[in-house]
């Protein structure tokens, strides 16, 4: 079986759990879509600095710094703003931060993830060719790569023994957070650390094509 969550609630459930992975003071890059929901679930005593590929350190809400939407956009090209104390940087510096190991964590979606921590999220040959943007650099350079996604795509597993789509990077994913559970990628494969209390381990395994080891300290995902 699957969860009873509707799409909106499900995304918030995932984002809320991802928020608990971030530490006060972290420098974080969030991918488009679901990951952008994460900051609203951060505890009041956890402050993170957001990086945006386009050239912002300290992206966030403070519209009075530059209210003209033509000059400040986010990674998706939408009007954005920067926090007091933030910095606008050029693309060389932006990717020095990203590739150079200065970003503590990146949270992004995936088309497929596999048991070796390989990630595919930039192309479906013949169907969807958006390009990789900054994703390949982010997952190679960030200290921690967290995949936040729905567990399946129209009922088909996205967590596989081996990715079948062209890769974004090899051995890069550290943690997978879905509506069904929290899965850690280790040298021996995937380990289920937390499980949605609505589900059994058998439910999660049935929706996961790669074998899952179950953590001896498995807890409910909240």
């Amino acid at each position: 079986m699957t969860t009873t969550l509707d799409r909106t609630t499900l995304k918030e459930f995932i984002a809320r759990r991802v928020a608990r992975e971030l530490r006060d003071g972290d420098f974080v890059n969030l991918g488009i879509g679901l990951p952008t929901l994460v900051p609203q679930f951060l505890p009041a005593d956890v402050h993170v600095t957001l990086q945006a590929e386009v050239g912002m350190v300290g992206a966030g809400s403070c519209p009075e710094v530059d209210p003209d939407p033509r000059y400040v956009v986010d990674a998706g090209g939408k009007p954005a703003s920067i926090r007091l104390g933030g910095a606008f940087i050029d693309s060389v510096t932006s990717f020095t931060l990203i590739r150079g190991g200065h970003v503590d964590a990146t949270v992004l979606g995936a088309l497929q993830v596999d048991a070796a921590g390989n990630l595919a999220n930039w192309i479906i040959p013949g169907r969807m060719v958006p390009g990789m943007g900054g994703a390949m650099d982010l997952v190679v350079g960030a200290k921690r790569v967290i995949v936040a996604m729905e567990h399946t795509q129209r009922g088909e597993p996205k967590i596989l023994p081996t990715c079948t789509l062209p890769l974004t990077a090899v051995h890069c994913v550290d943690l997978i957070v879905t509506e069904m559970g929290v899965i850690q990628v280790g040298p021996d494969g995937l380990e289920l650390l937390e499980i949605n209390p609505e589900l059994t381990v058998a439910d999660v395994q049935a929706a996961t094509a790669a074998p899952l080891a179950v953590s001896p300290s498995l807890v409910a995902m909240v």
Partner: protein
Amino acid sequence: MSKLIHMAEAVAKITDGMTIMVGGFMGCGNAHHLVQAIIDAGRTDLTLIANDAAMPGYGIAKLVEQRRLRKLITSHVGLNPQVGIQMNAGDLEVELVPQGTLVERIRSGGAGLGGVLTPTGLGTPVADGKSVVTVEGRDYLLEKPLRADVALVNGYRVDPFGNVWYRGDARNFNPVMATAADLVIVEADHLVELGDIPPEDVVTPGVFVDYIVAGGDLQ
């Protein structure tokens, strides 16, 4: 001596078949007036190096929509559906480059380097046909430099010498592209006097800049 020229003079320096770099990120920081002037003048068969293909009707997206490109070297085309259509029809060649690799290839081109070694793209289709170099036990892809015939840069404040100050994150690829072309044309949102940009605040020094055109407020 001022580097300021009329838009028509600038466009006359760009000819069919050239490779152009245009700064910007999803249209933010494109040299909008120069791009429009190139289109109006009928320039075509261009190779465009840019971070992305912008969004329908905005900035460099128009170069795709008006079918003025032979080739596009870029990191992301997902927000401009025309690219996929022309690519699938065989009308437009697209070379997809990771964004951090694209910026370093341009930096190499402008900095006199023979390329850059990056871990980005290893084990992916990006690595196809490229040399892998091992340095201190770690593998890297050799990515070669990129240069253009002309770079079109958009600055917010530009003085007569070509010193540029950028506003917001319209900065993005503009400063690095100003280093990597045979001819660099800056479109100024605002023309200012020498000294109006304090030396400490100059982002692109005017020595990189050949010509300036007045852009004025964006549409």
